[in-house]
């Protein structure tokens, strides 16, 4: 009886341990397959051509600069939307809102986070784009701006939830100390609470930006899909194409093992590395601030 039990325990413990390591295995596997299918590009397309301004795979132009600039443009736009609104909402929820408003706002923001991106893209096409076209008097409503607005909406829930957590975990004593010194609540927010929650807020912003860079369906549906190199701010009002949208739109039609196929994997590899950089930095910031908090509090 006893020996059977410990034999069982041994197997289960092993299985649990193996599962624990699975996350590392998957990240490694993902990176390996991206490298395996993406690296051949470097042998097939001269570097100068790869980092050129023309993406037209049918005639073997594989310049990824327009796609990089498209992603950059839309992400910057999304950040400009998500940071003020996300942060504003987070501060409102954490510091100002009465309890009932908090109870309504938090689930609503979560709801936005839960909406499938394809639904947002769909509404972007039918509701947002036509209005923007008329309002701004543009030839088409499917522009980088449209994508930025929607992507901003997609990034907002991430920014709000992480930043709100960070603000919420600032010890109440900090605030009370500032009030006791005669600061208004508004001054306290800006000079005490926000600085104290700085690393958490920054993490939230980074993770939100990370989501915006990686978002696929919405941008593919509303940015007009024109791989044109963005040269100025005017590009916001014309169609662009992001790296993610390019992969999603073209991978279905390429022959496995072709130059085009390898190049799309190469773009995926670039995306993977960007998200890796964003997430490692963001998590390093969280770890560091936790350590600091532990030192201060113990």
């Amino acid at each position, binding site marked *: 009886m006893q020996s059977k039990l*410990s034999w069982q*325990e041994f197997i*289960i*413990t092993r299985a*649990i*341990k193996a*599962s*624990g390591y699975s*996350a*590392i295995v998957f*990240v490694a596997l*993902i990176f390996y*397959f*991206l490298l395996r*299918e993406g690296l051949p590009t470097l042998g097939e397309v001269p570097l100068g051509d790869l980092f050129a301004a023309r993406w037209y795979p049918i005639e073997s132009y594989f310049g990824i600069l327009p796609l990089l600039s498209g992603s950059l443009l839309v992400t910057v736009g999304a950040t400009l939307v998500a940071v*003020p609104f*996300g942060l*504003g*909402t987070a*501060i*409102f929820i954490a510091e*100002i809102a009465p309890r009932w408003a908090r109870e309504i706002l938090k*689930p*609503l*923001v979560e*709801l936005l986070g*839960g*909406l*499938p991106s*394809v*639904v*947002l893209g*769909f*509404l972007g*096409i*039918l*509701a947002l784009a036509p209005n923007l076209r008329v309002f701004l008097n543009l030839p088409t409503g499917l522009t980088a701006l449209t994508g930025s607005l929607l992507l901003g909406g997609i990034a*907002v829930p991430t920014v*709000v939830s992480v930043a709100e957590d960070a603000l919420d975990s600032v010890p109440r004593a900090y605030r009370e100390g500032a009030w006791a010194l005669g600061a*208004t609540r*508004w*001054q306290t927010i800006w000079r005490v609470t926000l600085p104290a929650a700085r690393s958490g807020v920054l993490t939230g912003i980074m993770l939100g930006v990370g*989501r915006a860079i*990686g978002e*696929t*369906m919405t941008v593919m*549906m509303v940015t007009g899909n024109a791989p044109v190199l963005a040269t100025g701010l005017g590009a916001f009002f014309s169609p662009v194409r992001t790296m*993610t949208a390019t992969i*999603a739109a073209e*991978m*279905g039609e390429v022959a496995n093992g072709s130059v085009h196929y390898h190049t799309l*994997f190469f773009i*995926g590899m670039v*995306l993977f590395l960007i*998200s*890796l950089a*964003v*997430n*490692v930095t963001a*998590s390093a910031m969280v770890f560091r601030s936790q350590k600091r908090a532990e030192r201060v509090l113990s």
Partner: protein
Amino acid sequence: MNKLLLNRNQTQRLGFALLTVMAAITVLPIILVVFYVISQGGAAISWEFLSGFPRDGMRQGGILPALVGTLALTVGTAIFSVPLGVAAAVYLAEYAPENGLTRLIRIAIINLAGIPSVVYGLFGLGLFVLFLKFGTSILSASLTLSIMTLPVIISTAEEALRAVPQAFRTVSISLGATRWQTIRRIVLPEALPGILTGIILGLERAAGETAPILFTGAAFFLPRLPNSPFDATMALPYHLFVISTQVPEMPFQIQYGTALVLIVFVLGMNLIATIIRSQARARRQW
């Protein structure tokens, strides 16, 4: 002095008003979107719409194959991601020592959560569809979605496990239980509502995703239901993408109807998770 104080109070009032407006601007569109989709799509919903096949180049008929496909993908994703994710959470919460390897696992989980969904699609294409030769199938798509879902399940389940009081574990061990007996008889049952919430939130994300299944299992149009895990399948989110971008002269009503069904499917799962969470909180005795 008096004047200064007044100024500060005015600043505060102005600032608070600004933040209130920003929060309202953030939230209002969400409410508008949901009501708009309900009002536009509500008329399309009928038994024929839910139980019929698309006809006339998808411009008429129902969405049954897409609905069934999304259901199949969600179940398929659960089969792989739930045992693996919960076991990984148990490892992190109950067994993992505080060392470099554990930190590496945590960083890997954070990274999995951040990898763009379309990159998951590429990975699924490379590993499951081509390398393992599962083809464009429910199996390949479910496996791809599982890995994407994993970090959500692991982190929420770990949190739920850690919330179970340490004293239960100490007492159980002192009564001669092994570590696994303690986990199975006390820790897991007590953390179950939290774990379920995490599972549903993860699956909710999987059900609404399009990019990871684009090249791993989604079919543009299928006039029948899939009958094996090795078949490709239609899926609600991909179907919505198709009928809103690829099919000219698509009736709005069917588009909005499809969007509504997708939203109800996804938010319904969200609602269930919320209910489980609040009920468990009310019942909990520690």
